[in-house]
């Protein structure tokens, strides 16, 4: 099958259900690999990667499932190959070295691109940062550097759970950038000049907080025409009011019911002002003499996390926690990392999807409450097949088939190791098969769930669509990157890369 999409062309093997061919024996295998390498000939910067995600030992042989990626560029033209194979290995003549006996290619895809600049998108950060000293001194070094150089008592953490927010703080219609940082480093407010470059306003705007900060949100909370700022710190939320010129003052501190991660806002009760939803993960280590951490139990479906909060806007930057009275305390003891508001059933109100680590996600449908003006949420995730039992890190809505219904993409953790282990017979042999399946699902990867309309369950099309194999995935977003009317998907991957090269 062939696709042509403006400077990008995609070639695919004929029938993904059946193997394209079966290469058996030395000559055939050599021929197969030579064919494979052909498109890369003459290219520069060639990269090749193999990742084993399943191992099936048999009596005299071992079969592995492998994901193969390659890339090569040549000025404006580049190519990448994506394939999955099953490889059969036998013992070599020396009885030690495993040798390839057969290769079954299961799927093959070739993506060719012709961009004048060589790549579709390029890192142009430095060209916007000439006035921002902190770019080189604070932002070029990452967690590996800072955790070696900062006192632990500054409250930092090495996991890199810090995000960004885009919003226009000074009313010129140009987005500015707020960067959250770990404990001991100041958050940065970079304001966009009219020429597109950035200026560091962190200190004068009053938002250069050194406290550990995970996320932030620019929203006009008091409807006065400027962007206020909500900041999620270690265990609390900070509300900052914009004075209209891009300078902020503290308007309140709210204690969170756990460790807050992602923030998202919508007017859930349609009363004209924006409300806030806070995803709480676990608890921060309670007390030093407790000797115990708060850990998820059981790991594949934990409900011992911290409750999320819906904060209703009461005006004047004051909020009330209405989680319980709106029904959102249902299934609300999970380890939540991300939430996305959207009117998925097109009935005029904002529903809410929550992605949870270590277990099932929520889809809260927004319904009218008992009294006029009241709302009541119902978790319809089980009924509409959107539970996605996996370690969820991110949720995003987008209509990827342009049928007028918003679909869901959820980032999970795809683990090569997880797949290798959970599919082996020896893994949890005494456990109920449904629990084994849950662990297997747990390591599968990201999920694309298609909205099929009125009260029908969503359809998980991950396997057939080709968007499941992420890695340890964090943010994922829908974006039409090549302006062809179809929303593409971007995923940020990678957990912890340290100086040691042997991965856990």
């Amino acid at each position, binding site marked *: 099958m062939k696709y042509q999409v403006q400077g*990008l062309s995609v070639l695919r093997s004929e029938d993904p259900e059946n193997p394209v061919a079966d290469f058996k024996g030395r000559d055939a295998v050599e021929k197969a690999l030579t064919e494979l390498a052909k498109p890369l000939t003459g290219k520069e910067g060639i990269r090749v990667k193999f990742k084993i995600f399943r191992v099936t030992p048999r009596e005299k042989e071992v079969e592995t499932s492998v994901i193969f990626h390659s890339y090569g560029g040549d000025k404006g033209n580049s190519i990448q190959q994506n394939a999955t194979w099953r490889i059969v290995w036998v013992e070599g003549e020396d009885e030690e070295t495993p040798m390839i006996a057969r290769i079954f290619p299961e799927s093959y895809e070739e993506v060719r691109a012709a961009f004048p600049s060589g790549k579709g998108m390029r*890192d142009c950060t430095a060209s916007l940062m000439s006035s921002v000293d902190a770019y080189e001194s604070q932002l070029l070094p990452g967690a590996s550097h800072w955790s070696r150089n900062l006192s632990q008592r500054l409250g930092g953490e090495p996991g890199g759970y810090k995000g*960004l927010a885009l919003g226009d703080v000074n009313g010129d219609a140009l987005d500015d950038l707020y960067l959250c940082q770990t404990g*001991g480093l100041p958050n940065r407010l970079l304001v966009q000049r009219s020429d597109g470059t950035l200026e560091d306003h962190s200190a004068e705007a009053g938002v*250069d*907080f050194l406290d550990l900060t995970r996320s932030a949100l620019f929203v006009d909370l008091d409807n006065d025409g400027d962007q206020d700022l909500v900041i999620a710190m270690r265990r609390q939320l900070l509300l900052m009011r914009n004075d209209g010129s891009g300078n902020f003052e503290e308007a309140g501190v709210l204690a969170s019911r756990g460790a807050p991660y992602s923030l998202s806002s919508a007017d859930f009760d349609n009363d*004209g002002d924006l409300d806030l939803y806070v995803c709480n993960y676990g608890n921060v280590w309670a007390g030093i003499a407790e000797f115990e951490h708060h850990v998820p139990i059981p790991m594949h479906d934990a409900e011992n996390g911290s409750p999320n909060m819906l904060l209703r806007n009461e005006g004047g930057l004051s909020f009330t926690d209405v989680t319980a009275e709106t029904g959102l305390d249902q299934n609300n003891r999970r380890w939540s990392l991300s939430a996305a508001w959207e009117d998925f059933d097109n009935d005029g109100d904002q529903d809410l999807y929550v992605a949870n680590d270590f277990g099932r996600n929520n889809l809260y449908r927004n319904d009218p409450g008992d009294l006029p003006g009241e709302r009541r949420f119902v978790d319809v995730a089980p009924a509409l097949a959107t539970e996605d039992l996996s370690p969820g890190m991110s949720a995003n809505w987008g209509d990827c088939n*342009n049928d007028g219904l918003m679909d869901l993409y959820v980032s999970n953790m795809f683990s090569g190791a997880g797949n290798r282990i959970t599919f082996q017979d020896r893994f949890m042999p005494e456990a109920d098969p449904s629990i084994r399946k849950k662990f297997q699902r747990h390591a599968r990867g990201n999920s694309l769930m298609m909205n099929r309309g009125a009260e029908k369950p969503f359809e998980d099309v991950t396997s057939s669509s080709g968007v499941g194999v992420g890695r340890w995935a964090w943010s994922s977003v829908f974006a039409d990157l090549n302006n062809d009317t179809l929303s593409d998907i971007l995923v940020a991957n990678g957990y912890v890369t340290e100086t040691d090269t042997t991965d*856990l």
Partner: protein
Amino acid sequence: MAAQSPVAETAPESRDDYLLSWAAITQMLARGFSLSGRERNSCFLNLGEEQFADASAVSGFDFLDDGRALGLVDWDFDGCLDVWALNRNGPQLRFLHNRMGEKGHSLGLRLRGTRGNRDAIGARVEVQLGGDKQVKMIRTVRAGAAFLSQSSKWVHFGLGSSDAIEELVVRWPGGLVERFRSVKADRHYEIIEGKGELVRWNPPAGRVTPQAAEVEAPVISDLARVVTAARPLFPAISYEKPDGTSGRIDEFVGNPVLVNLWAAWCQPCLDELADFGRHRQSIEGVGLQVLALNVDEATADGEEARREKARRVLAELKYPFDSGTAGADAISALDALQMMNLGMQIPISTPTSFLLDDRGLVAVIYKGPVKVEELLKDVARLQGPPREWRNQAAPFPGRWVSPALGSEPVRVALKMVDGGERGAAIAYLRQYVEKARLREIPESKEESGLLSTPLEEVLFVIARLHRQGGEKGQAVAAFQEVLQMNPNDRKALLDLGHLYLRNGQPSLAAGHLETLVKNSPQNLDALSLLATAKMQMGDLAMVDDLCRQILLLDPNHATAYLNLGLLAESRQDFSGAIGNYRAALKILPTWDIALNQLAWILATSPEDELRDGTQALELATRLHQITRESQPVFLRTLAAALAENGRFEEALKFLEQAKSMIRARQVGLRSTFATMERLFRLKVPYRAKDRR
């Protein structure tokens, strides 16, 4: 590797393994191991018909940054969505300028609510394209989604090869629907709710063209100068002076001191020591003392040889200050100190230096050689008040919202325990408490602004550590110290209750537990322990009361049933006892004490209607399977049950075993066994005495 997750929470051993696995993974990450590292970002291209192609590499998006957050915005207003990414690793921030959509048409919209929220969050925008494709696209204005991310509120549509927009519809949050025709593509518009028109918006002139440039994060180095934000206490390590006598860090307190660790094979160490010598005047000029501790491993030649070699080396280098040799225990203590005060736990190496202020608190840790210039500046900064310490530690200025964290000596102590040095951990915490009481350590929040660990908590940890080491007397004393500071400290009262009970001092236990119960009448652990204490003291009426209270709070409290059973037995109410033991066993079917008590009654009760030989044997057998040969009393019960079922030979065997296990002073058991043996030989089952 990682233990498997407990499927349900009931199995205590698997839960402990599971917790240890989490602790192990956290530890490994803290020490610089990778986990799912070196993974590239992904870009999936939508091909239509619910199919996507992996274009990660050709798109240029596939960086290896441990990516976290993504924000979308058409930054340069060229019609293509660009991406801001914030990553865990360096470079933390990337602006990715996207030109993949250059050939396609696009539309940019900014919405403003008037009746609804000003940001128009929740507004749904539909674009219907004309032409033969009849494509209709929808977008919603949002605030916050994905992971820790917020994209621009500008709404972007890619229109493909067609620039004919048939209709644009906006569904505002309040319900108002506005439709627009003749919308020109490749433009930016502002739409204000209710105004009924699209207002053209032009990007400002003079925009800079984004220029691509490769950036690299700085190379990771283990060399660092770390200003501590909360000045931890330096452990009272001992070392040997050059003349062989023992030296203590205490001797230096009163003036700042740099404690330097060096080894003879380490060239940077030697260069550094020579450098100190060259700068003698300026170092002495600021009142700084220096103590160079040699940490070479002791060889077969012994300690004196090591001292001699160190002395020689220092003399050659013309090193003029104090020196000594330190042993493995000192290094271990300092390793715990530095690992728990830095973000990354990397074992100590040479040279490493600690700059102590005049109170013996660590102000700066130098990993690698110290530059004297920097050292002198750091000495000048030592005088700052505790409130200023964390600002000195932060590399860039900024403001704080949360209170400053204290030094948390317990974390260092627990690290020492991990390393097998429980004694050193206790000594460290004792030292901390003493110094805090002398006000040499900023302790109260009011004075210092630091959120320090309350002394009661430190003392509690000392007590627990003593208890873990079997030092009961010292544990009790330390718990008592906690109570002196806070007579109502729940944890100390409970732990003391436990300890006294295990020590066979139930009335002392009861005293503390009663205080605890008075303050926390719903604390099940306290109520349960108090019931046990009262039982041992013979205060039976209280036991009854307490057990009933417990069962009101928790109908599944097995210990309460057990205690009620024991109570009933002491009152010769055996049928009552049976009922309670059965209840306990329903909750914990494998509880040895309950099995033993019940089986004994069922096998030996003088009341015919209470005996049940079959049940007795079943229970006693289960008990034996669980406990094997661990307790003579359990074997005795099995023997009695067997006898009640006519199996006297087997009964005698087990009785023999039990006899061989009891000690000389267990006179009561001895005489019972003798009686049982006599009866079994006569093929008569044993009956307990009828004391009614």
